[in-house]
């Protein structure tokens, strides 16, 4: 955009449109954005760098080249040749892009219009349903999210017992493959609840217990089957067993759990259910666990820490029990982190994943502290998903997923000035900015 602006003065308005049309085609028909991102070698200078994994560098330099972070340092100009796009970061801060570990971004366009929702497949055991294949790169919510500093999310299916496989994506790209960081980040399961589902739930205690036990039996059977299937195929693949059994898509998807390539993400919120899930997890020593939701995680924080199970939690929800302290949801993440739990923060949202930094801000204010809250939206989720070699901090060799802010990124009143994803300098444009531009001064004719 900087380059475009420089050229702008050389053309009349109509001339510019013609030239743009030649270069870009008709930009207005693009679903996702109306301007192309800028790509090249960038040098961001005089900027306060918040690498997350090391100390803040005041007035430093970051070089972005070939989509990666090529240089991070104090304000000594690195030796660079060729076309370089210089960005003055004076008075600004540079952070790694924020990561939300559980969203329906790209899967859910308009919540109430079911034909636009691809987050809930039929059936209760769907490990073979992979979110990435249904992620709509043209979702209007994607630009809305990234211009506020969230560069990566896990898009995760929601329904049934085993919802499906969640995929970790960049919030830029024209195909799901181009956006993909890890299409098999984790298999999400909804831990059966031992409580009533709502005030309208007319089941008796006995019926509830029966259904709960049946669901637990179903889980145990599923994992026993999957483990046996995996063991069988391992034997076949290593020629220890000579057989040609049928391939089962569900079981194939479950195999990624036993090879530790995919994590098992257990959605569980209530104290009693977390304890039950913990007990079950200790019996599955060949799986890599994540607990998600954990709204009552603060009640069992020591046990979560002891089991060394990382969690995905949120901050801006109402207390889970009417007897709870009003600030407990704000405190939950911090209470768990202080007990030694590895915490990543999430909005658990779709269209307002952009609010992730505010969840971090509330968690920071209510006991987590700014430093730990920053980790909970950067390096912690990167570690959680096993991609801390690519994302989560400003370190040489990592993906250039960066955000430039005019102040504290957790502060509501701060503004995100620039966003880089895989080295692409993203246009700071979304439906929300475009409607503002059109309607702020609607009847002005110039």
């Amino acid at each position: 955009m900087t380059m475009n602006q420089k050229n702008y003065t050389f053309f009349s308005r109509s001339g510019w449109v013609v030239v743009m049309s030649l270069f870009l085609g008709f930009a207005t028909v693009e679903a996702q954005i109306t301007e192309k991102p800028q790509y090249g070698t960038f040098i961001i200078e005089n900027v306060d760098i918040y690498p997350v994994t090391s100390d803040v560098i005041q007035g430093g330099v970051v070089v972005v080249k070939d989509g990666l972070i090529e240089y991070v340092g104090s304000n000594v100009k690195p030796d660079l040749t060729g076309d370089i796009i210089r960005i003055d970061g004076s008075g600004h801060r540079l952070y790694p892009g924020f990561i939300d570990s559980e969203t329906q971004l790209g899967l859910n366009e308009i919540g109430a219009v079911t034909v636009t929702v691809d987050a809930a497949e039929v059936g209760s055991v769907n490990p073979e349903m992979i979110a990435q294949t249904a992620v709509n790169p043209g979702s209007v919510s994607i630009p809305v999210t990234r211009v506020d500093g969230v560069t990566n999310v896990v898009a995760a299916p929601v329904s049934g017992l085993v919802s499906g496989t969640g995929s970790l994506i960049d919030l830029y790209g024209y195909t799901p493959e181009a956006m993909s960081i890890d299409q098999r980040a984790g298999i999400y399961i909804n831990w059966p609840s031992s409580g009533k589902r709502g005030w309208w739930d007319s089941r008796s205690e006995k019926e509830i217990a029966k259904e709960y036990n049946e669901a637990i039996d179903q889980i145990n059977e599923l994992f026993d089957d999957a483990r046996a299937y995996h063991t069988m195929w391992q034997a076949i693949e290593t020629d220890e067993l000579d057989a040609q059994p049928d391939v089962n898509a569900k079981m194939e998807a479950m195999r990624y759990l036993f090879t530790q390539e995919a994590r098992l993400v257990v959605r569980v919120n209530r104290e009693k259910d977390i304890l039950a899930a913990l007990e079950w997890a200790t019996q599955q020593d060949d799986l890599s666990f994540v607990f998600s939701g954990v709204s009552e995680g603060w009640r069992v924080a020591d046990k979560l820490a002891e089991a060394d199970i990382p969690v995905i939690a949120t901050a801006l929800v109402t207390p889970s029990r009417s007897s709870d302290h009003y600030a407990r949801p704000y405190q939950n993440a911090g209470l768990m982190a202080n007990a030694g739990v590895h915490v990543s923060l999430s909005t658990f949202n779709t269209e307002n994943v952009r609010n992730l930094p505010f969840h971090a801000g509330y968690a920071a204010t209510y006991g987590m502290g700014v430093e730990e809250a920053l980790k909970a939206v950067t390096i912690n989720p990167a570690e959680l998903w096993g991609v801390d070699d690519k994302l989560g901090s400003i370190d040489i060799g990592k993906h250039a997923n960066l955000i430039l802010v005019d102040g504290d990124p957790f502060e509501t009143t701060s503004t995100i000035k620039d966003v880089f994803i895989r080295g692409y300098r993203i246009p700071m444009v979304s439906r929300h900015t475009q409607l503002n531009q059109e309607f702020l001064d609607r009847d002005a004719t110039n």
Partner: protein
Amino acid sequence: MTIQKSTTLKGLLTAVMMLSFTYVWAQPTTYAGPQSVLIKNGLVKTITQGDLPNTDVYIVNGIIQGIGQELSAPANIPVIDATGKVVMPGIIDAHSHLNTVSTNEATSPVTAEITIKESIDPNDVAMYQALAGGVTTINLMHGSANVIGARNATLKLRYGADQFGLQFQEAPQTIKFALGENPTRVHGQGTGVQPRTRMGVERVIRDIFDDAIEYDRQRQAYLDQKEAHERRPNRVAPPVPVAKNLRLEVISDILKGNILVHCHSYRADEIVMLVNVFKDYGVENYTFQHANEAFKVAPELAEAGANASVFSDWWAYKFEVYYSTAYNAAILHENGVNTSINSDSNELIRHLNHEAAKVVRYGGISANDALAMITINPAKQLGIDDMVGSLEVGKHGDISIWSADPLSIYAVNEMTLVDGQVLFNREADFADARLDRAISYDQSFEDLQSEVSEAVRGRQDDACMEDAFILFESGLQTEQTHNH
């Protein structure tokens, strides 16, 4: 923050009693009627008259009597030291269903005869959670199932008062209208009763307005003739009785300007429709609620003198909010529309200061204008701006005291006062703030308080649709969410 209790014997006794009360029952402080208090040395954000550093606010019997420096009060008046704190008016939420018992009487497209005042839960702990976020006044609304819903209740969060004591008695009556998807879904699509379309919605309003005018004429003629007949029974024939019709009396009061309309709406076209209807019938001083597309017709709204009460950033959960922008409030404000930020949510109501701060991010309006959107602007929309919404002498002692600039995400509300009484004090906070905790809930009932399930699944409805589909959905299983 500590309150220095009065030093008189009576005061000491009260303090000791309060203390023992606290330890024995650990009951939250409950409303005890208007109080006197002196708040010393805070940064006072008046909203209407600028920020005043190192300033005192003196409240006598629930009313602000003085704002200035070095104010003094009799020794028996409690003093709050607000040094280093920010003192602002209590937050006002122009759209809430915080403590309704039920929200929607979804049985007819027009239910003006009913009132949400008969559906107030005075024990709901959600009130305490809102107080903890600095909120002192709410517009407790009927839902959006009907084109013309029930009359609303403006409440003060006098935690501990009964359903009558909670009501803001001096506030004018308001009523809920609703346009678009919700009434057409519930009635036209749900039960086959008009309206099924936005065309039908307009006709429902115009038809009932016409009915009310005709009813008024007939009823008045009957009353006139009845009076004349009673005065001169031999000269004037007895009248044919016209029965009193509460529904039409309420509609008639809207047309006479006695009841303020708060209209759930989203799309620009339906907003303009109602502006035109109200122009035709001479209805003024109304507020569009939600109004996600109000920014598209901001000049029309400004010209009509209409108000808007909007979300800071909610969008895309249904089709009629798909073409939304978080810049809505700022665009309306810049075009001269009196705009407030509301919650419509028991979660958002706990941090409306943060919601207001988003208008600074999305539109760059001033800090004071942002705070006005949760104080004096909603007060105007509820017709109570002569009593609350700013810190001025003569206004109610409804105040929140913050650890820092309330627009900062790091700011924490330290105290909330209603009518001069401290009803939330972070230092003397209660882990369990329920009023009715003597009632023992079983664990399974406790469990259903969780709203994380909603967060996980994402929103499909506004909170205003609570109860609207009970008839269809009760007993539905796993995917059912109790929209709050």
